[in-house]
């Protein structure tokens, strides 16, 4: 169960990170220009003009990112974009059209539209304001599929953030011939930070893995998994201690027949590792099942994909075996240090 919790929670947080990366990559964002904290919508929108003058920057679009309660049951990721934002190019409209700047219009990801039971042309109440759903799009990531996008000015208005944005998403000009992409990215970052010293230019991939939501998800996943693992380790330790106790005489026989302490220790630890491995296999199955269920539930589908990276499987098995070894360490040490005579006397 502990490994199941580990797989489900860490899988969830990894999948969450992956979805963020997908948002940036599909939108063609190379760099996010932000302030120090992710949700700090206090960047002056006028800085966009300065960004656009920099030589390596092809497009720079201001945006706001927020979470908004659409209905008591559904809280959606909400983007404020300008209608000419380059990131809208990656969306495929299944119905309707894009919103217009300055109009109370929204577009919905297909998953959110389905959960809200809305189609193009339907009204939508958002934070006490009335909007019209002008289109339903398909996004490449689960985060986009469950997001709501509205004109930047409309979001600034309902959030009382006139003139402020969360970040600028920047697309660089094509890579000049003979230059490495890494060097080009670093050079662009330096240009941006020199022009706007109060802001940070962060590569999209780094932004996806280090934004506060992902960091919090990772921390929560590892924290909760650690507690579950600790309980699991105590369970295995108890089982191993009982097993060693019940087989005290057998251990005595092995010692009497000349088995060295380390060999007895290895035998018990091998059993503990095997127990951890077997538990890991079951746990991976349960965790994977949990991820699949979560990826289908309306409440969590937006941030969980059923993708199961092989590295997570290896990590889970590694953690399971390590948990077994940790749990078996004391019983194994105790078993290996039993006196043969006393162990043989054990009933």
């Amino acid at each position, binding site marked *: 169960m502990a490994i199941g919790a580990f797989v489900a929670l860490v899988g969830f947080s990894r999948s969450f990170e992956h979805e963020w990366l997908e948002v940036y990559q599909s939108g063609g964002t190379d760099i996010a220009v932000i302030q120090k904290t992710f949700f700090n919508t206090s960047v002056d929108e006028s800085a966009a003009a300065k960004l656009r003058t920099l030589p390596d920057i092809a497009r720079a679009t201001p945006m706001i990112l927020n979470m908004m309660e659409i209905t008591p049951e559904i809280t959606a990721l909400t983007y404020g974009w300008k209608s000419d934002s380059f990131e809208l190019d990656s969306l495929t409209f299944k119905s309707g059209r894009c919103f217009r700047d300055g109009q109370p219009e929204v577009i919905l990801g297909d998953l959110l539209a389905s959960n809200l039971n809305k189609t193009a042309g339907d009204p939508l109440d958002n934070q006490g304001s009335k909007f019209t759903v002008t289109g339903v799009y398909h996004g490449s990531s689960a985060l986009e599929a469950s997001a709501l996008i509205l004109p930047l000015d409309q979001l600034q208005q309902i959030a009382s953030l006139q003139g402020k944005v969360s970040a600028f998403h920047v697309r660089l000009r094509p890579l000049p011939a003979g230059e490495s992409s890494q060097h080009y990215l670093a050079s662009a970052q330096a240009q941006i930070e020199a022009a706007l010293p109060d802001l940070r230019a962060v590569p999209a991939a780094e932004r996806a893995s280090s934004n506060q939501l992902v960091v919090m998800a990772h921390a929560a996943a590892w924290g909760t998994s650690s507690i579950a693992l600790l309980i699991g380790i105590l369970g295995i330790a108890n089982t191993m201690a009982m097993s060693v106790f019940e087989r005290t005489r057998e251990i*005595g026989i092995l010692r009497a*027949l*000349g088995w060295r302490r380390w060999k007895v220790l290895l035998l018990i630890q091998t059993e503990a590792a095997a127990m951890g491995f077997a538990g890991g296999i079951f746990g991976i199955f349960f965790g994977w099942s949990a991820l699949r269920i979560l990826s289908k539930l309306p409440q969590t589908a937006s941030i969980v994909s059923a993708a199961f990276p092989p590295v997570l499987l290896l990590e889970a098995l590694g953690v399971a075996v390590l948990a077994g070894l940790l749990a078996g360490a004391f019983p194994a040490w105790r078993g290996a240090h039993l006196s043969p005579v006393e162990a043989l006397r054990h009933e």
Partner: protein
Amino acid sequence: MNDPLEQSPILTVRALRKSYDDGRIEALRGVDLSIHAGEFVAISGPSGSGKSTLLQLIGGLDSATSGQVFFRNALLGTSVDLDTYRSHHVGFIFQGFYLMPTLRAIENVQVPMLAVKSNAKDRAERAESLLIEMGLENRMRQYPNELSGGERQRVAIARALANNPSILLADEPTGNLDSVNSARIMEMLIGIQECRGMTLIVVTHENDIANAAPRHIRIRDGRVEL
């Protein structure tokens, strides 16, 4: 065959003491003796006399409170590591058989061979050959609970011989057997001792067995009776 007494002792015990419970119980109170290679020695004495404790110390199963045990003039626990001594030089036969209940007879015989360098094929072949020697060719695949007491003890003897030890230590080997099986087991042990020239030390409280041994050591109150 050379007279074993003309050779240097395979085992020498000097001023051996063993006490328990912070010295309140003295199981051995200074035992001195020598046993030569190829000897068959019976150690007898009343219950609680210290005979099994002496066998455990001679076998390297336990450490003495004071005194020394020498194997071929090398001090046990110092010059000779006890694990190596038990795995290479000593074979144990216990009253309670002490077979692994989850292993088949042939697997039980291979357990001591896992303590020394050996390969799986050699282990299996040697175990099979020993069980055939013990007349258990049709019982190799049985688990201990599927064997009679006499058969279990024969498996235990095969196991004791697995690493071809120079000393065979038997602690009340017939204690859990009927008279027919007791006689058969003793006949086997003596046969093995004679054929292989092994040193056989049998702890017993049965006079018939003790008297069958060319040398008989009596223990009383933790001391050798003269």
